[in-house]
């Protein structure tokens, strides 16, 4: 009898402790959750992206991604491209002739497609596009293009990226060029690319408005949407750069 009441008293104490722990746990979690939610109301998914302005074309992107073929791909910003015949991104430094033969190409997988556009005042212009599935993100072309306009740049292909919690390339990146950005932003442009998109967007807008005024017709909806998209992309960049400047007092080395 005595032992039983002792036992039940112990049981009660146990249960009380467990209840207290549980209530405490729920309260702690609720307050922590509340704190996090209050801290950042727009908690939208974040994705990895690299800042092409900080990229040094070291080649780690090709070798450090957890995927067999890296999720980092090369892109060409055509608004910065010179459409050169002698493209330093396309050709090996010691090319033998200006043709598409493999031994002349800087790209180890032949992922850059060279297409003739037109000949103007004795000069031939070529368009360089990236055959994305073949690109391995080795940055050989980026390195070459950096000698000229720097229109070729690396960026993460979100369709391929697994969006790891800790990006394996980010840990290997010598200039800490990798960032988590909100999903809706989706890209980090070169500062210069943002500038040319801004210019092209506003130029297109001016032209379509003038054309509409002169011919007295409706404004071309498709072109206007395109121009707005370009302006929006440039604007997103401005906002992101500003937020980076603000967040990074003296902590971040600036590699601009």
């Amino acid at each position: 009898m005595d032992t039983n009441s002792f036992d039940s008293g112990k049981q009660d104490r146990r249960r009380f402790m467990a209840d207290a722990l549980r209530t405490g746990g729920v309260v702690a979690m609720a307050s922590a959750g509340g704190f996090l939610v209050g801290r950042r109301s727009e908690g939208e998914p974040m994705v990895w992206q690299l800042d092409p302005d900080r990229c040094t074309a070291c080649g780690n992107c090709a070798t450090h991604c957890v995927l067999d073929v890296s999720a980092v791909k090369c892109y060409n910003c055509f608004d910065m491209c010179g459409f050169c015949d002698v493209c330093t991104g396309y050709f090996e430094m010691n090319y033998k002739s200006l043709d598409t033969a493999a031994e002349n190409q800087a790209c180890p997988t032949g992922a850059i497609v060279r297409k003739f556009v037109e000949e103007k005042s004795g000069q031939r212009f070529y368009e360089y596009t990236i055959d994305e599935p073949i690109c391995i993100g080795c940055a050989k072309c980026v390195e070459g293009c950096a000698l000229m306009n720097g229109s070729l740049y690396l960026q993460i292909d979100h369709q391929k990226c697994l969006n790891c919690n800790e990006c394996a390339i980010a840990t290997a990146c010598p200039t800490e060029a990798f960032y988590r950005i909100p999903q809706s932003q989706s890209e980090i442009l070169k500062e210069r690319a943002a500038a040319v998109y801004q210019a092209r967007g506003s130029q297109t807008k001016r032209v379509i408005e003038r054309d509409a005024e002169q011919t007295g017709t409706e404004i071309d909806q498709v072109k206007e949407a395109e121009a707005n998209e370009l302006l929006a992309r440039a604007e997103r960049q401005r906002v992101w750069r500003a937020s980076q400047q603000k967040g990074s007092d003296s902590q971040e080395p600036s590699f601009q």
Partner: protein
Amino acid sequence: MNQSSSVYKIRIFLVLGALCLSSSVAVGSELIPVPEFTNHDVPITLPSNPDSPIWEWLNVGLLVIALSLASYLAIVSRSRRGLFALAVASLLWFGFARGGCVCAIGAVQNVTLGMFDSSYAIPWTVIAIFVLPLVYTLFFGRTFCAAVCPLGAIQEVVAVRPVRVPSWLDHSLGLVPYIYLGLAILYAATGTAFIICRYDPFVAMFRMSGNVNMLIFGGSILLLGVFIGRPYCRYLCPYGAILGVLSKGSKWHGRIAPETCIQCHLCENSCPYGAIATPTRPIHKSERVKARGRLAKSLLSVPVLIICGVLVGLLLKTPLSKLDADVRLAERIIQEDAGEVEGMTDASEAFRNTGQPTSALIERAIGQRELFGWLGMALGGWVGLVVGVKFVTLSIRRRRVDYEPDRARCVSCARCYWYCPGEHVRQGLVGDVSQLVSIETTGDPR
């Protein structure tokens, strides 16, 4: 500096060459302008857009369903088969299909970073993935570990020949998750690294690609898991450490015997994770006094251990800060300048090309190292506390009359249920437990 100037020279050379070739280049501009084509639109490079976040929410929904189902299977229907099937399904979906990322274990770091870094926007889904298993554990025990976590599931599947780990080793290794948790929080809070993800043993398998070290590490844990039940969950998993503490106060928890325990001790051998607490034998009064003395000593040892931990933590400053990028870079630059090492790394070369003064970098690195000095002391104190609490819990004598699951360690895998004769009676397979245990109970079970 040399590198950048030589690049610049080549650049000038090439630009001049291009200028000679092209008459349409505007003189004075360094860059070659986009040509005006007569009949060709300059294409626009489109960004690659990520998939809609709806997938992440779908995952959270599935997590809730899986957690509820696991809790039901573990506590109400007591179905080992159901739990195993759910574990395999979770392994296939959360592991192989979703690539095992973001998981609740890694989310510890996202939450920590979210707490400490106001510029990091932690997504809703990650908060949910972190909090949901905690809440379920508070009510139903570690059912998340049983059949939802893909890391647990893959080890559950391979645990075919588990041996019993000696108690002293089990208790000592059981401290590692708390230390790992402390380290993970430390590095996540400083924004240095997500070490749980970096040393995730199975993520490379889930993706079926990854670097060789990761695959070897994961492979050896799996191989070990054949003989030692769930080595990652028991001796490494930092989230499991949190869940274990919460599980101690869970409202409900699976019982081994459905009705009354008949002390047959069959269940004890069934548990591959050493999570079954045996009944205590009554102790003599003189022993009780001794036990009380032990408890008092261990209680007194806690502050001593914490202080010792803090002191040892002082030594951790330099090794801990090695993972910080600034510190590493500054060390390298100093070594290069002193001529201690040959050549340059990518990072030091990139840094030198920016033309920034090294003094600023070194100052930053020193600041970081100071910070790690404080954090190292905190970590040392935490380790001291964990060891002290372990001593205390080991010296508390609890009275137990039945075989019960040790709530902190039990992952609710439901293996023991089937070993309990009472379970066979509950399922109506036999009329009376005596039919099953007549042989086993002839002697004293102890």
